[in-house]
């Protein structure tokens, strides 16, 4: 008898576990009842000094729902992000979970201080994914968040789409929480993120978009349904989320400068990740053309760097190998010139060399002015000429100003992409 009972020990254990665990499991409320899902976060400075206005874009799941629930915005002004999120939970009556938070939008005013002091709570906690995108905006981040709420939750988020696209074609900040921190902790202390703005697109007549209440909901403890457009008498002003390719550059955690789209084109040349671009060369003159304007697509861009320290001056020599495809040739007012399949010669190469040299010098001047090191030349010099680099740093009054002494030279080789 005793042996028989012992042989069935597994069965008894399973029954015991069922008796212990089943009632508690059945008694637990479903997760959709106790949770609200945060899909995006906006951080602004509050009207009250020293406080932050934190807005969360939340989705309250419904059991058996079709994922067509509206996104809601919840705001709270508090001294810290942690406090804001906690107070929002009281408002919503649910625990706000951040695992599905795709992006955090930071307004320019917030970025005037070291944002790592704000984000520290998120990074240390296990609640949020480290791949959450960081986005800078010139205006109010809450408005941008409100505009993104217009997107159906079943579609791909448009902010991510913009960021992903920009990363391939522009020097832009596809920065996520983790990469931002990595750059912040590196010796160069320079991080960057995409600057995305919102414009009002006037549309007369029409359906007037979706019926939405205002998404502003400012002030402590406000909750509002999402909205990104306002209708008034047939004219519709629709908020459009857009990126002109400008990039916010952070130094020591603070936004040091927003690089405009024109300046960004200069940075594009120095970024090895940007391989494709459309470039227009003006005033090309040779035995065939005179003061012509030629457009090229850069199909391939190969950069070879040489880092050296000559007489205690850090020097970077960059050799650009450009695979070009001629797209358009204009001479004066005429556009119907014979088609040149590959109009690449010394004059074009020279024009490219001058353009690149100018662009590189401009971007370096911006970096030197603010002391930031976007392309991590610190590491490159440390790897290539460690001893001389240390000597150079020790010779500086403030080693953080190492960018000011760096000289950069370029060489360009152009060839047909075909």
């Amino acid at each position, binding site marked *: 008898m005793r042996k028989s009972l012992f042989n069935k020990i597994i069965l008894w254990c399973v029954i015991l576990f069922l008796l212990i665990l089943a009632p508690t499991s059945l008694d637990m409320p479903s997760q959709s009842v106790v949770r609200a899902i945060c899909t995006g976060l906006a951080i602004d400075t509050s009207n009250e000094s020293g406080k932050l206005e934190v807005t969360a874009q939340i989705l309250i799941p419904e059991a058996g729902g079709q994922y067509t629930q509206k996104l809601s915005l919840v705001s709270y002004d508090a001294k810290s992000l942690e406090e804001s999120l906690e107070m929002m939970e009281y408002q919503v009556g649910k625990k706000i979970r951040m695992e599905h938070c*795709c992006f955090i939008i930071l307004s320019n005013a917030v970025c005037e201080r070291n944002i790592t002091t704000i984000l520290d709570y998120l990074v240390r906690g296990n609640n949020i*994914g*480290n791949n959450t*995108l960081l986005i800078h905006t010139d205006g109010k981040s809450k408005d941008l968040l409100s505009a993104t709420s217009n997107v159906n939750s079943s579609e791909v988020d448009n902010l991510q789409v913009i960021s992903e696209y920009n990363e391939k074609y522009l020097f832009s900040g596809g920065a996520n929480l983790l990469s931002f921190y*990595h750059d912040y902790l590196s010796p160069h202390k320079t991080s960057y993120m995409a600057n995305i703005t919102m414009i009002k697109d006037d549309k007369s007549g029409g359906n007037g978009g979706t019926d939405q209440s205002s998404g502003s909901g400012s002030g402590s403890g406000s909750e509002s349904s999402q909205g990104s457009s306002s209708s008034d008498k047939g004219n519709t002003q629709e908020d459009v989320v857009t990126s002109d390719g400008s990039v916010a550059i952070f130094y020591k955690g603070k936004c040091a400068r927003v690089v405009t789209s024109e300046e960004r084109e200069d940075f594009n040349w120095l970024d090895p990740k940007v391989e494709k671009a459309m470039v227009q060369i003006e005033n090309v003159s040779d035995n065939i053309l005179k003061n012509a304007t030629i457009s090229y697509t850069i199909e391939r861009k190969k950069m070879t760097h040489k880092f050296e320290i000559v007489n205690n001056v850090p020097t970077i020599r960059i050799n650009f190998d450009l695979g070009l495809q001629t797209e358009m040739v204009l001479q004066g007012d005429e556009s119907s010139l014979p088609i040149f399949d590959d109009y690449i010669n010394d004059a074009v190469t020279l024009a490219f060399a001058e353009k690149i040299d100018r662009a590189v010098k401009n971007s370096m001047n911006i970096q030197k002015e603010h002391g930031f090191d976007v392309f991590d030349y610190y590491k490159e010099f440390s790897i290539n000429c460690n001893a001389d680099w240390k000597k150079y740093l020790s010779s500086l009054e403030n080693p953080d100003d190492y960018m000011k002494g760096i000289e950069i030279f370029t060489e360009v080789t152009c060839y047909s992409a075909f």
Partner: protein
Amino acid sequence: MTELTSRQYIIVASIIMLTSKLVTMPSVVFSSASNDAIFSVIINSILELLLIFLITLAIAKNPNKGLFEVLKSKFTRVGAYIIIGLIAIYALARVTFCYEELYSFFLELLYDEFSPYIFAIPTFFVTGYLAYKGARTIGRTLEILFWFILIGTIVSVVCNVGFMSFDTNMPYFQNGIMPVLEGSGSSAFYFGNSICLLFFMGKVRIDDNLVKKTIISSSVIALLIIAFCFIFYDVFGLSMQYILFALSQYSQYDPFILELQRLVWLSAIVDITKLFCSTACLAYCLGQAGKTFMQSKTTLLPILTTFLLIFSLATILHYDLLVMIELVRNYISYITIGLITLTIIICIILSISRRQNAQKFIQ
């Protein structure tokens, strides 16, 4: 009586070596060695290979006797108890650590709020049952799961190769060799698992090439661990200091992977299976130590006692992994270095003296 085939022993050694290093070890090493963390991992992996080689050699040279008998014949009864006691203390700390890792991993990956006591009931039961059933059951279970675990781990490792830049942590040795040694010292606890293999002494069917095969497979596993750490350090760089669970973060780096939920399931299934297997192996070894001390003929009582000890220790530490990691980094790892050294000496003695006896017998 042999309970494990050579193949099963090799798989057990590989699983014990592999699984428990991929959760918190990379972060712990990085916190001490910073950019040079990969060198600490390499040094410790080499030392662990040496340890596995000597333990397997000792097992091969003493084929038909259990650990206690072999130790008793060389170091007297008291000596044998002391040695097994030391190894048992290490195994107790290691199993408790594994449970805390497993619990924290559940919290990180699957559940927000989950009572450690509710967690303890089924996990203790599953691992305890495996430990109770003995080496043969463990060997067979791991034999079935091995390829699943290995392929899952390789996929986890490979998924982030695209984000590598290979020079993220360069230049190395900026602060000399000391951070590397400090990293090695503070993480030795993770690399001492193989000591528990001693409890399989007398239970393995000895083939001619057992030592050679074990070393080859362990080398492959060591390379996999080094590759894992290298990719991990390269992808995450200095932001490593904000990451505790290497495995769960590993599949979530790509901003667009998380949206698609491509590989989170892989971590959820494979990595938890790995941790369960590893914990069961270590719990078995601890149970064997308990059996020796209690001089019990059955396994049930030592296993129950063992799990009572693990539960008590975990409760004292409030199932808080961070507390345990602090203890490991500051104290337990350095004690483990001593234990590893002692084990190496013991294994050399066991291997050499047995050979001398055999030679005498031949003469």
